């Protein structure tokens, strides 16, 4: 399979997980950032908070409590899309043979073949593959950060649109083809044409312009799943695991270290007080800026999503630009209306799904798949907990992938034979 633009895009940014609150805000509550004394508009969702009258200590406690409560809510809000993505990928892997067929084609990002006889050579090749892949990612990310720094927005938008076009039309066309072949159904070109055209066009509209939130979320999940399937098919086996590990480390470095490209991206965007790439992020809630008569002024109240980074690498999917929508929407001087949500980069979805999908494809049986699935969710939980504590952009990959890898290898090589032996010998524990 030849490389495509979207493949290159996939490594633009590393995944990062961000709370939808402005970093300076001490608590998780969006109202806190509202400087308007007449806040707590009628539509405010935090009804509980209006009852707070006690001293600062009581306030702090309540804030913490609410922080954790809302943190828990966000965990659930992210579980569902991540689970859905993984379910789609695993279902496809298990039912459609195409994605697990051995293929000699490789992406140019993994030039070293794994058809080696000796274990050592194969291991070496997979490490070399991952080095190539990671360097491509690093270069792409730095390129993106440079473009962003020098305000080449048009270029970036064009790139993102091209990527999503590729994904929505070409990959889904291939997927549909494989689906029909698998179930031995006849399908004609006119119908397929209409289907793909509708799917792709509505997808572009929902993602890059305005559309219902659920539909946009659904599209983001679908394209993450499609991308993950491509990776599962075209990355050689051992390279996949090494690449997963390497990407987690890169993610950690890129988001947390002071000179990391992603961190620079966040900081630049925060300086400019603008949203960092609404693209490439899955947002679980909606972010609304305060409505001001003068849209330019509205930005000073910006909180929530605006300060968030477009974590995920991969997919250039532009979610509808929150500030533009909200500014145009609210008439002048309205109370700040916010619904905090959590944002997760699409790259995170993709790599989680790659891990689980690969486990489903090559692992022993469902035990391995389920173990990896649980591991990733636990990792996600922990990451969100850290997010609630630190309240700044965090890498979402490392913890989950680390757990996932540990669980995969231990289940496949230790737990699985153990369970099989127990079952064979009819020994129940």
């Amino acid at each position: 399979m030849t490389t495509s633009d979207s493949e290159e895009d996939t490594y633009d940014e590393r995944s990062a997980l961000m709370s939808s609150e402005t970093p300076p805000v001490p608590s998780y509550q969006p109202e806190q950032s509202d400087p308007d004394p007449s806040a707590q508009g009628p539509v405010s969702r935090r009804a509980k908070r209006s009852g707070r009258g006690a001293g600062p200590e009581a306030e702090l406690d309540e804030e913490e409590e609410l922080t954790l409560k809302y943190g828990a809510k966000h965990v659930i809000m992210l579980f569902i899309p991540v689970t859905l993505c993984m379910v789609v990928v695993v279902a496809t892997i298990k039912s459609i043979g195409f994605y697990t067929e051995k293929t000699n084609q490789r992406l140019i990002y993994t030039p070293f073949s794994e058809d080696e006889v000796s274990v050592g050579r194969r291991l070496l090749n997979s490490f070399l593959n991952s080095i190539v892949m990671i360097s491509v990612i690093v270069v792409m990310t730095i390129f993106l950060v440079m473009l962003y720094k020098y305000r080449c927005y048009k270029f970036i938008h064009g790139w993102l649109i091209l990527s999503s076009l590729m994904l929505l039309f070409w990959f889904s066309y291939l997927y549909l083809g494989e689906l029909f072949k698998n179930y031995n159904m006849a399908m004609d070109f006119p119908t397929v044409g209409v289907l793909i055209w509708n799917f792709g066009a509505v997808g572009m509209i929902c993602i890059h312009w305005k559309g219902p939130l659920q539909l946009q979320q659904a599209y983001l999940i679908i394209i993450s799943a499609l991308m993950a399937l491509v990776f599962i098919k075209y990355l050689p086996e051992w390279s996949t695991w090494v690449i997963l590990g390497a990407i987690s480390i890169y993610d950690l470095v890129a988001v947390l270290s002071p000179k990391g490209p992603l961190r620079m991206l966040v900081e630049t965007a925060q300086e400019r007080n603008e949203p960092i790439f609404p693209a490439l992020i899955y947002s679980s809630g909606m972010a609304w800026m305060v409505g001001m008569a003068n849209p330019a002024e509205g930005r000073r109240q910006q909180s929530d999503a605006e300060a968030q980074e477009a974590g995920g690498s991969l997919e250039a999917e532009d979610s509808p630009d929150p500030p533009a929508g909200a500014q145009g929407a609210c008439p002048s001087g309205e109370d700040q209306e916010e619904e905090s949500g959590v944002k997760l980069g699409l790259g995170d979805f993709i790599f989680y799904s790659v891990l689980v999908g690969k486990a489903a494809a090559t692992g022993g049986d469902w035990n391995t798949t389920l173990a990896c699935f649980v591991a990733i969710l636990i990792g996600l939980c922990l990451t969100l907990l850290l997010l609630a504590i630190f309240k700044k952009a965090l890498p979402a990959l490392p913890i989950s992938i680390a757990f996932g890898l540990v669980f995969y290898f231990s289940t496949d090589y230790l737990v699985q034979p153990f369970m099989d032996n127990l079952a064979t010998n009819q020994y129940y524990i």
Partner: protein
Amino acid sequence: MNLERVSNEEKLGLCRKYYLGGFAFLPFLWLVNVVWFFQDAFIKPAYTEQLQIKAYVKRSGLGLALWVAVLTTWITIYQHYRAQWGEVGDSLSFTIPLGIP
């Protein structure tokens, strides 16, 4: 995008754009239009733009129904007569089932 936070004029504009967009062979867009604006058009208490939104939603629904009818007819014909059409059937086919029916 949450419709509740959007002004009525914007809603009307959005509904209209979705309606017009559907003419580009996009019945799915009409479906999204109907589902998304259904509440605003029929269930919410009256407001200025509601009449127009209602009109757009109804027309989108009509267009959608038309498309569904056409597609269903075509798919039925194709699936039924594909084998008999011989070469024409094959050239129309995206995937051809294998094996003996």
